[in-house]
């Protein structure tokens, strides 16, 4: 029972990070119909930035916020300067460009920061909380992780649901031509979407790095899990990404706890295969409505 309880708790913590990262893939996919394979590398670069700041005695919170801001700007830069010029061609062009971003950033990071493991500090304590005399697999830092993701999601949801900026962004994502005819500056909305995705990706990267060693490709595993989570959720549903992230987080924790950690990735891909066989559009896709 204790084992199940602990696995569930660590599954939830990992799950919200996968969900956050899946959200940024969905944000971009909804608006531009491409998967940004460079997202993990962008997050890695900003995590290194935070680490360098912390090593130079900048307060943790300030370094954290600086990394998020850098993620926002890097996202905007990638859309505006690198992806925009190839967007008019077939979608595969842009996808390949994002793969190029991934390779280039990982290689650059290795040159600048080195390939060695570097310890990234955690924001809060990594000692398990005591409940009724026994230690559980929930640490103060995990609470911070879960809380940060929940706040970020609430802000994102509020932005899209209740503000006119969010309405303009959604209109641009669903129908660029009609949005333009209604006076929406679609280009700006796309840039903003990529910037927000960059910020969310950075957040996920920072949270998953806390208390662990980082290296230029430390985000690769997260990208795979988040990608599976996003596909599970249908790729264009925010709710789907969150549910997918949690499912992936819990599954990987159970598999790692009861079967063996070497089978975690295999389990993720097995889930993906089963879902795609049974419901090819994903669990929460709105693509049926889209065809009307």
């Amino acid at each position, binding site marked *: 029972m204790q084992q199940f309880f602990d696995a569930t708790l660590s599954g939830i913590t990992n799950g919200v990070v996968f969900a956050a990262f899946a959200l940024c893939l969905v944000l971009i996919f909804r608006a531009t119909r491409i998967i940004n394979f460079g997202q993990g590398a962008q997050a890695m670069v900003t995590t290194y930035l935070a680490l360098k700041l912390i090593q130079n005695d900048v307060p943790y919170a300030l370094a954290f916020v600086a990394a998020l801001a850098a993620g926002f700007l890097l996202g905007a830069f990638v859309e505006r300067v690198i992806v925009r010029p190839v967007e008019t061609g077939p979608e595969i062009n842009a996808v390949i460009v994002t793969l190029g971003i991934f390779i280039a950033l990982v290689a650059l990071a290795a040159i600048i920061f080195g390939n060695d493991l570097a310890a990234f500090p955690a924001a809060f304590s990594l000692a398990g909380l005591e409940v009724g005399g026994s230690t559980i697999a929930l640490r103060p830092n995990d609470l911070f992780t879960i809380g940060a993701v929940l706040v970020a999601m609430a802000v994102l949801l509020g932005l899209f649901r209740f503000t*006119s900026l969010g*309405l*303009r962004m*959604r*209109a641009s994502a*669903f*129908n660029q*031509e*009609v*949005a*333009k*005819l*209604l*006076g*929406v*500056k*679609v280009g700006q909305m796309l840039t903003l979407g990529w910037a927000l995705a960059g910020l969310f990706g950075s957040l996920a990267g920072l949270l998953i790095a806390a208390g662990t060693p980082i290296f230029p490709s430390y985000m690769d595993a997260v990208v795979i899990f988040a990608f599976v989570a996003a596909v599970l959720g249908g790729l264009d549903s925010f709710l789907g990404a969150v549910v997918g992230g949690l499912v992936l987080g819990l599954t990987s924790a159970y598999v790692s706890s009861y079967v063996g950690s070497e089978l975690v990735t295999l389990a993720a891909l097995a889930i993906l295969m089963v879902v795609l066989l049974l419901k090819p559009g994903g669990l929460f896709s*709105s693509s049926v*409505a*889209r065809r*009307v």
Partner: protein
Amino acid sequence: MLEVKDLVTAYGPVLALDGVSLSATAGRVTAVLGANGAGKTTLLRTISGLVRPKAGTVMLNGEDVTRSQVETMVHKGMAHVPEGRGLIAELTVEENLRLGGLFRRAKDGDSELARIYDLFPPLKERATRSAHTLSGGERQMLVVGRALLAHPKLLLLDEPSLGLAPRVVSQIFSLVRDLVDSTGLAVLLVEQNAKSALSIADTGVVLNLGRVVATDDAATLAADEGLRHAYLGF
């Protein structure tokens, strides 16, 4: 209001518009008629900037807007309701409507919505529903209502009768006529349904293979049997 001169638009080597000139004036409905492939939709898309012309000019209220960005046209008083209705199916009815007036950044959003709901009561009942649940006629109401929220001086309507029952078509058309008479709006109406369109239009322009073959009073065109048989199909 709108002056189109010698407009030429090509898709690759194919000329869709081959020197089209026409005008639309305030308080009048100008119908653009012709068969499938005559260039009607291309004409509207070129006027609103969705497609760039190879040659020719589009003047709106004396301003050359030929090379203007699509996003700026609505600020200049032009609203374009594209073919196939152009509602955003994933948004609710009310969100679709709000989009229409957003660019004005005005604070009168709610009273403006009320004005459109008065005009189209069925939309009010379905305000919070997803737009893809609407019937064909309601969809047309939604896109016309959304265009009106922009306070346009010129309204481009692309095939509003497409897929609608004849009774709904005549409702929509008489509503457009009333709007034009009461507000002095200029309407450029593209239609394959020539008979219905001419019944509410002041002027008709007949297109064939990208060229204007006739421009005249709507009544005169409707009475021209040779023209009707050759180009208008009634």
